[in-house]
């Protein structure tokens, strides 16, 4: 099921950590777009639902040599998903149309195996029913169903926007795929036609979204052969679709559990077509 097929289109991100200030606009935009309920006290981070979290990284040096970097963490949309392989009911799988890992709420039985399996803590369990202050449910979008208590959910790369973008092309009379190089097909959606809510909201342009397989897209250039790009837990072989960019070595080192004298590794597919 999770054979790491090389799909035609693989939606992915390049998140520029040199540009992120940790302002939180992406987190708010994500919650608003995906109908996550607000909570009055969000201090218990194990119970609070956040599809996208901005983490704070430090070089751990004392003042004044201290450096600070913020790292937004959406679902990494792995090519080799630790989550989907353990789901007993196939409530989550990787979609060959774009490589996005889905989460089907009515199918989920809430066993949370996937949460235990996810090395990125990108999955969240609905411990409570989502409650909006009276009237605030009027500001919900119609694009994403509201999840009840008892199911797991996670970032979907704003998949509904992908569906909408495709429909726009179809209604315009076009085909959703166009031929690319080497017999590959690319999505006919223009690069700015499908963007996740976080990438769209970021005033610093820190999140670049696009097709990792399409040479015309910015992410393609930013992620291939870029010495400053890295992925989280690269050597785990999860083949994530979220790349991070940082010009600082110490940030790139934090991407994986490197030994003291070990060199930081560049993104590569560790386990191509393992299955």
């Amino acid at each position, binding site marked *: 099921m999770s054979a790491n097929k090389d799909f035609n289109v693989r939606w992915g991100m390049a998140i520029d950590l040199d540009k992120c200030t940790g302002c939180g606009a992406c987190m708010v935009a994500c919650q608003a777009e995906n109908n996550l309920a607000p909570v009055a006290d969000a201090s218990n981070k194990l119970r609070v639902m956040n599809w996208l979290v901005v983490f704070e990284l430090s070089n751990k040096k004392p003042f004044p040599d201290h450096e600070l970097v913020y790292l937004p963490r959406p679902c990494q949309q792995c090519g080799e998903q630790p989550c989907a392989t353990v789901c007993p009911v196939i409530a989550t799988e990787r979609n060959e149309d774009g490589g996005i890992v*889905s989460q089907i709420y009515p199918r989920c039985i809430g066993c949370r195996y996937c949460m235990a399996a996810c090395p990125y803590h990108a999955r969240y369990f609905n411990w409570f029913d989502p409650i909006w202050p009276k009237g605030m449910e009027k500001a919900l979008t119609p694009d*994403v*169903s509201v999840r009840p208590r008892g199911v797991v959910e996670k970032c979907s790369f704003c998949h509904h926007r992908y569906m*909408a973008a495709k429909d726009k092309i179809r*209604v315009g009379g076009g085909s959703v795929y166009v031929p690319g190089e080497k017999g590959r097909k690319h999505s006919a959606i223009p690069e700015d036609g499908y963007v996740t809510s976080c990438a769209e909201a970021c005033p610093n342009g820190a999140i670049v979204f696009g097709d990792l397989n399409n040479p015309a897209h910015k992410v393609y250039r930013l992620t291939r052969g870029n010495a400053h790009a890295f992925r989280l837990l690269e050597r785990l072989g999860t083949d994530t679709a979220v790349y991070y960019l940082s010009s600082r070595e110490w940030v790139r080192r934090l991407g994986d559990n490197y030994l003291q004298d070990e060199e930081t590794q560049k993104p590569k597919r560790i386990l191509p077509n393992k299955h």
Partner: protein
Amino acid sequence: MEKNKHSVNGDARRCSCICGAAPFFIGALTALAFGWWIFPDLLFSKQPQPFFFSHAVHVEKVGSACIDCHSFREDGSFSGLPKLAVCAGCHGDILTAEPDGKSSSEERAAYAAEKNFVENYVEGNKEIPWLVHQKQPDNVFFSHAAHFSRCYSCHLTMKGRLNFGSPTNPQKLCMNCHLSLEELDKNKAVEFNALTGYSRTTKKMGECESCHAHPGHFSNDGKGRTAANNACYTCHK
């Protein structure tokens, strides 16, 4: 005496053998009757539409295809039921001639119906609370655009499991899931499932899968097939 007694007992036993099975069959038959006839009536509540709308009349007078009224928007989304403004475009005033002495009862009824519509809805600027036959759950993303543009464009002239109609009768595509115009014009009450809240005619996932679970195209095995995949995110949100 003993024998006689025995024979009495024997009759009683035979009788009780026949009569003995009766409660079982009575129970079974009652259950069958309940399960087949009474239960569906109990499970479904019937709700009438706010008023009668004749698709046939409108198709004849206004447009020939479904998408003339149930149109696509520029952003690719499907408008579904037309808003009141669309109706008010023609029915701003009463179009039917005011009945006089020569009018038939049908003409009178038509006039009364339109008058009611214009006065209550158009002038009151009140959206019509239509009951929807095919409302899908929130977690379903049904792309009208995909089915209309991709399937329809090819299948219009092909024969297969899905009946895509003919160039002169394009509605047939829609009728694979929606009620036919004839059905709609019977103005039957919409039946809603008391447990789920969905209408009786709402398509269920199995019906989507009758094509979506058969990937690949061009087959003569009688099964519906689709070029689209059956990944969860194809239809879920």
